[in-house]
């Protein structure tokens, strides 16, 4: 069975394999090799037999073809109501056909499937809320991505991403040493302004074990410093693990379920090792979804819960504001109109809408909801890995129009976006459409308005 050297059914498990992929600029050779990648029909058939059970088969079978999912999809709306963007059509013409043909499909078909699964769906799960039968096409696209991955049909960046998780247990090449160094660096860099500031590594029995997105130590270390300062101001007894600090999962976007398990297991091992009372995750949507919501299942935890209770950053902030651990200076609250980007992964798919509203009630004087909002909010346009995929950049940019119009309709020029993917998508939207908006995570906003207790102020 012919396989490419880069594009194949094998997973990436060594640094050499990873570097070979990275050296192939924009995946040119990779996608070239994909054209001659053969399908292992027997394996596909066996996988369907083993993993495609009554839930998905029933969904595919009973779909009444009513089209009520159409308007729920931002891709459908952004593409001038192109019927080929109707969620039901997208899933029936891909997974539906694979199941119907019991895996008897060819290369051209699988490439179309890949382009649909990653280029026309962000797995935001909004369509599932609009189907009278409760058919969640986002879940099916997630499953379909797994089938594609197992056959080698996965976008180049995500093959790399899942390899990163397999090798570094992080979405980027950040080693444990790099991470611990960054923690020390950030603590030292800020201790003058914040006497007593620490980033305690591997402290046992802390109240909070804080975990992050690898982009933070790699590209935005000040985010880590801001988190440390806020924990410091709130008087939290907290720590970060030297290993198992990464929450994200490009493996989830890729459909590499084994890498998903490896990744979350590293975090759960850190929980077992350090025995914190609870875990708090940084301002990232899919990281929370992967490690807190879906992760226990990949790791085979029968409770469906993480080894210690886990919280998204917005839950911690809401609690800190509610209990007075963090106090806001009323004079410094946001005066201008401001809106909030509900991330699909921790709002729709994890139920944290009220935390977001509670936070906004403390920090903003003119908070404007998008319409629709909360669990009905549209995807930012960059979810499900979409932001990082060169092959689908154009589709992504078209999709951003829905979020752009939603934001503009609020009249707000500032968007609070406690999710890396949403944050990126909104940044790119501004770059492309020049609508004159600003966007921010919570941490820098909070730091600007939080009251610093006298005993924590630097000596003049």
């Amino acid at each position, binding site marked *: 069975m012919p396989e490419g050297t880069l594009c194949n059914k094998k997973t990436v498990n060594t640094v050499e394999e990873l570097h070979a992929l990275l050296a192939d600029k924009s995946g040119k050779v990779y996608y070239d090799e994909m054209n001659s990648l053969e399908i292992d029909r027997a394996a596909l058939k066996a996988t369907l037999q083993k993993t495609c059970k009554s*839930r998905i088969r029933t969904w595919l079978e009973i779909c*009444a073809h009513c089209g009520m999912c159409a308007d729920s999809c931002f891709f459908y709306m952004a593409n001038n109501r192109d019927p080929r963007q109707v969620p039901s059509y997208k899933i*029936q013409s891909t997974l539906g056909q694979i199941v119907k043909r019991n895996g008897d499909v060819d290369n051209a078909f699988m490439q179309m499937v890949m382009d649909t699964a990653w280029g026309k769906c962000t797995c935001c799960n909004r369509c599932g809320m609009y189907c009278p*039968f*409760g058919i969640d096409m986002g879940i099916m696209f997630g499953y379909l991505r797994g089938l594609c991955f197992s056959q080698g049909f996965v976008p180049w960046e995500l093959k790399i991403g899942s390899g990163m998780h397999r090798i570094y247990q992080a979405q980027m090449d950040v080693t444990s040493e790099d991470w611990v160094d960054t923690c020390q660096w950030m603590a030292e860099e800020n201790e003058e302004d914040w006497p007593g500031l620490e980033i305690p590594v591997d402290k046992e029995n802390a109240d909070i074990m804080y975990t992050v997105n690898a982009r933070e130590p790699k590209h935005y270390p000040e985010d880590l410093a801001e988190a440390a300062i806020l924990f410091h101001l709130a008087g939290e007894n907290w720590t970060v693990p030297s290993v198992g600090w990464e929450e994200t999962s490009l493996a989830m976007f890729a459909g590499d379920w084994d890498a998903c398990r490896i990744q979350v297991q590293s975090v759960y091992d850190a929980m077992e090792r350090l025995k914190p009372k609870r875990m708090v995750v940084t301002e990232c949507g899919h990281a929370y979804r992967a490690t807190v919501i879906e992760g226990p299942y990949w790791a*085979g935890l029968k409770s469906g819960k993480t080894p210690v209770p886990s919280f998204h950053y917005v839950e911690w902030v809401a609690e800190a504001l509610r209990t007075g651990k963090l106090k806001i200076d009323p004079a410094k609250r946001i005066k201008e109109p401001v809106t909030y980007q509900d991330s699909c992964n921790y709002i729709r798919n*994890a*139920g944290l809408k009220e935390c977001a509203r509670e936070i906004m009630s403390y920090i903003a004087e003119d908070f404007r909801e998008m319409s629709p909002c909360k669990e009905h909010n549209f995807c930012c346009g960059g979810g499900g890995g979409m932001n990082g995929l060169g092959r689908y950049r154009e589709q992504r940019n078209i999709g951003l129009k829905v979020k752009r119009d939603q934001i503009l309709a609020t009249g707000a020029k500032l968007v609070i976006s406690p999710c890396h993917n949403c944050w990126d998508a909104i940044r790119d939207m501004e770059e492309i459409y020049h609508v004159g908006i600003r966007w921010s995570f919570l941490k820098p906003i909070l730091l600007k308005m939080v009251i610093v207790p006298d005993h924590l102020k630097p000596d003049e």
Partner: protein
Amino acid sequence: MYELVTGPLAWLAFAVFFIGVIARIVLYIKGLDWKLDRVTYTVNVSYGIRGALRSIFVWLFPFGTHSWRSYPFMTILVFTFHIGILITPVFLIAHNVMLWERWGIRLWTIPEPVADILTIAVMVSAVFLILRRIALPEVRILTTAYDYLVIAIAVLPFFTGYMAHIQAPDYRFWLILHILSGEIMLVAIPFTKLSHFVNFFLSRGQLGMDFGIKRGGMKNKGLAW
């Protein structure tokens, strides 16, 4: 012929219907897998039940969900169609007379004019459902011949029953066709998309459990469907 369709064929149709429907329920539940579906069905049971019931209940009411409210015309069509289909055959006087004659049991009945209205409403809404399939590009692209066949199977008993009821010429022909088409519908339920007769509840319940147990149900008051 009348003896055949009201005797052995009727027994056969009802047997296939009941056994088929029970089999669908059993197979669906047996095919649920906590690890593959990523829902702990048997661990966080109370959250699961709450999520499932909410997910089913709100969708049973016209305009009860965001989706129903987004498509008012479709919502009216769907509810008219289904209320007629479910109420009419069970509570029709003529059907209950037969039940009484054969087994000495009967249910509540609806007045004949109401049955007439419901029957016509089923047929009219079916026509609009078909027109909608043809007119809207987002529905047209999904539509296959099978979708029309399913509508035909569901509506034929009403059309033929109505013809028999208004004593159209060839009463006996319409009556036998009515009984036959009713039997076809019963048999079709477990084997076609009409299985949503039970799968609606199973699928809605499953997604409700998913949201109720895993996707936020333990941290909030429940999804606003």
